């Protein structure tokens, strides 16, 4: 199978065989072409070459409808659910049971949801609205959607990206259950731990090509080197932190969004000089708003933010940047860079008006050019010329430009949101090294990340956020299970106690997830 976008070959003659009743993992880095391939298979894109054979018979899909009819179901990375619909409506959409004159037989739709939901212990209320459900439950709605159409092959595209570790474990057990009932599963991921936990067979993709099969018994390091194409170190090397004074303090910070929801709720913490505090948590629990409030994009309703003994609440973003805050925004492509601007212009976006880059009303192009070239060297940015638009760079190199800009000044505080989202393994290593170097230079660092691997890789201390609050600040040696519980809202001491006692371990990891899922759904009503 081949798929070409313009001059970019996303899938280059890929052959893949899925056996009935197996879990087949498709392993590859971001941008390797895994999702593209599955979207072709699901009929969303047209293939530019190749055949799809189902039970040895060639099939062509004009659209997803044909793929569904052939027994292929897909759970997309970004859920295909209408937020204002109920669970029953979402499952019924496209395959509506109807009464006379086209009215939907809602009783029938609800029954179908309850039936599948109880078969797999999903605990889903057919009348709950999608937008009120936590992502784990939304994912189960997606699975019910596929199953209600008798899917024989289920494609899961990065299903664990948005889940807590406990939700991930639950998903893995659901996948096992499905497999026992004869469903084949294609599991797309770049997370090595999960692949080894569940897959029967593994296909590794790199730059649109299949680079080989791997066995689930391979070590993570073997899988990683196959995925990246060279040996990689999975652990980031760093010395023990040598923290100094707590020069950055947040006290009782409360932020309310336009719809009057409390998104950051009475948050207090310190970051000391020379340490990295990582903010962990599932996406959408207030981390974004917290970071934006510290830099001044959002105004807090209550609380103070103190940097070097001065409360910076009420200061403009420009003043805050001036007092030495470096900020790497979460969404690089929309907030971190201006795509049409050149690389060197993007390097001075927040310092364009000061020496040495400017004098009076004039910019000094020669200085800007020289500085840009120095930074390109220092940050190992792969580019053609510094006057090319930044949009021509890969994600990893764009992020290096952002980092070079933010780390290029003397900082009193460094904040980065999701600094390695969507980057390849090489760039991730580089970003982590630079952040640790900044720490060692004595800057307090605040890193927001939803990737637990990253949190463990760089954090000296970990703050876990859940529904706008900081559930607890714990050491970097806290177990994955305990962090997972905290990410579902369990206070730190309880989470640590629950995971410390080995007997309760199983019960505790299985129970709280379903509970918090159902309770938050009920609360939302």
């Amino acid at each position, binding site marked *: 199978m081949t798929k070409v976008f313009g001059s970019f070959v996303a899938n280059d003659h890929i052959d893949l065989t899925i056996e009935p009743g197996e879990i087949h993992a498709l392993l590859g880095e971001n941008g390797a072409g895994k999702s593209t391939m599955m979207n072709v298979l699901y009929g969303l*894109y047209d293939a530019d070459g190749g055949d799809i054979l189902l039970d040895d018979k060639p099939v062509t899909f004009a659209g997803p409808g044909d793929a569904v009819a052939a027994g292929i179901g897909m759970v997309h990375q970004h859920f295909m659910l209408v937020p204002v619909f109920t669970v029953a409506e979402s499952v019924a959409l496209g395959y509506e049971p109807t009464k006379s004159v086209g009215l939907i037989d809602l009783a029938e739709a609800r029954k179908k949801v309850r039936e599948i939901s109880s078969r797999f212990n999903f605990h889903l209320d057919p009348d709950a609205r999608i937008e009120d459900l936590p992502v784990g439950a939304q994912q189960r709605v997606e699975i019910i959607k596929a199953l209600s159409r008798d899917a024989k092959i289920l494609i899961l595209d990065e299903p664990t990206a948005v889940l807590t570790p406990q939700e991930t474990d639950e998903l893995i057990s659901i996948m096992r259950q499905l497999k026992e009932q004869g469903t084949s599963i294609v599991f797309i991921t770049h997370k090595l731990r999960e692949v080894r936990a569940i897959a029967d067979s593994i296909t590794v993709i790199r730059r649109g090509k299949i680079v080989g099969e791997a066995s689930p018994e391979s070590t993570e390091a073997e899988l990683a080197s196959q995925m990246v194409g060279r040996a990689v170190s999975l652990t980031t090397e760093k010395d023990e932190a040598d923290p100094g004074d707590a020069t950055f303090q947040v006290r009782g910070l409360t932020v309310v969004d336009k719809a009057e929801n409390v998104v950051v709720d009475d948050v207090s913490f310190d970051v000391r000089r020379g340490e990295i505090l990582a903010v962990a948590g599932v996406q959408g629990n207030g981390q974004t708003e917290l970071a934006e409030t510290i830099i001044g994009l959002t105004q807090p309703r209550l609380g103070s933010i103190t940097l070097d003994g001065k409360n910076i609440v009420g200061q403009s973003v420009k003043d805050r940047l001036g007092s030495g805050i470096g900020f790497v925004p979460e969404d690089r492509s929309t907030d971190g860079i201006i795509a049409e601007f050149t690389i060197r212009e993007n390097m001075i976006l927040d310092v364009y008006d000061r020496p040495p880059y400017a004098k009076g009303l004039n910019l000094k192009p020669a200085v800007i050019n020289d500085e840009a070239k120095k930074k390109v060297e220092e940050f190992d940015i792969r580019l053609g010329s510094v006057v090319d638009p930044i949009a021509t760079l890969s994600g990893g190199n764009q992020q290096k430009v952002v980092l070079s800009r933010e780390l290029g000044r003397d900082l009193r505080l460094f904040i980065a949101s999701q600094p390695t989202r969507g980057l390849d393994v090489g760039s991730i290593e580089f970003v982590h090294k630079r952040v640790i170097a900044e720490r060692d230079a004595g800057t307090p660092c605040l890193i927001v990340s939803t990737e637990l691997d990253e949190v463990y890789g760089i954090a000296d201390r970990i703050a876990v956020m859940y529904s706008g609050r900081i559930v607890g600040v714990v050491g970097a040696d806290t177990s994955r299970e305990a962090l997972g519980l905290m990410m579902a809202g369990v206070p730190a001491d309880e989470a640590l106690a629950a995971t410390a006692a080995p007997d309760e371990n199983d019960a505790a990891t299985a129970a709280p997830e379903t509970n918090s899922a159902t309770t938050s759904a009920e609360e939302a009503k």
Partner: protein
Amino acid sequence: MTAQNTTAATPAAKTSAQSKALTPIAWKFPITYTILALVSLIFFGLIGRDGETTFRIATSGDLFAIPDVVVSSTVAGLILSLILVVMAATSVYLALKRITLAAWFPMVFGILFVVSFLAWAGGGSGGVIPLTTLLAGALALSVPLIFGAMCGLVGERSGIINIAIEGQLLAGAFLAAVVASVVKNPYAGLLAAPIAGALVAVILTFFAVKYWVNQIIIGVVLNVLVVGVTSFLYSTVLTEDPELWNARQKLPDLPIPLLSDIPILGRVLFDQNILVYIMYVVVIALQIFVFRSKWGLRMRAVGEHPKAADTVGIKVNFTRVRNTLLAGAIAGLGGAFFTVGSGLAFGKEMSAGQGYIALAAMILGKWNPKGALLAALLFGFSKSLGNTLQSIGTPVANELLLMLPYIVTVLAVAGFVGRVRPPASSGVPYVK
């Protein structure tokens, strides 16, 4: 297990308690109420006008006659104003307590204020306020608005913003008049009107869906186009031989036996021509079908999250085109009310901006048929009120009265809509 449950529940409870304490006091409504109450008290009550105001309720042929209500202008003004002041005070108190007002509160307040105003306006001139005429006028003026708002909401619920309602109304009015005149049968005009509206929608969807042109721009351009085409044909063809091309044809009134003899409401609602009855059916049918039918579910899906609809095999663009054409037909029907519905010949630009007011009604009604109906009735009523006051003669300048519906529209859309959520993908072309 229970322990986990409680830990998950308590923080959420705390959050909501805190958010209440943090909510800034909403002063907008209490201030509005207080100003209106004081205006009523000072101008309609204390200063007032001597004389009596008669509210005429009965019309000939009613099932039972209700005598006219005669009140002293100042006394009525004072009593009503005092009630308004009490209500305003209540709203201030509730705002301080951060309690949201019930939905009936603004309605009751509005009705009392209008009655207070009428009592004042009718006084002095010894005027008679014909209630039935006032309400019948309100319904009549609302008909094109209601059809237009239904058109708009079907379009936007499917993801196509339709600014061209104005043009569709005008096209419907034009074709209805011409066809009815040529065939010499008003019902023929009624059949032609939806075709005209749908034709405008064809152009809209052609550019919006096939070429991804900005839907607001194409809508505005279509409005200007329809004004141009109809005006051109009017001055070249229609005025050449008005007897053939533009003769008046009126849909006959079809009073429903018994129901139409009920005083006030029966008169207003059930002594109408077929177009108004069609409107009732359209509104009720949409209210049911948008939310409970297969058609409605798919329409809302392509308007909210077209890609999700695509992944379950729904043809997004086909659904959008089909529904927008249907919506155009509905607006075309509304246009017929200007000509065959009211028994008038076609006149240049006779839709007079009603399509835009219909859009406002749709937004104020939060994209719900029921809500859009009420909003359109509010606008229709304010216009009818202006007309009635003009005819009985009041101290308020005519020009100000003519502005009334638009002032109400601006206030309603700007101030009272609050948080609304349009369909998420409305106006966004679906490109694979």
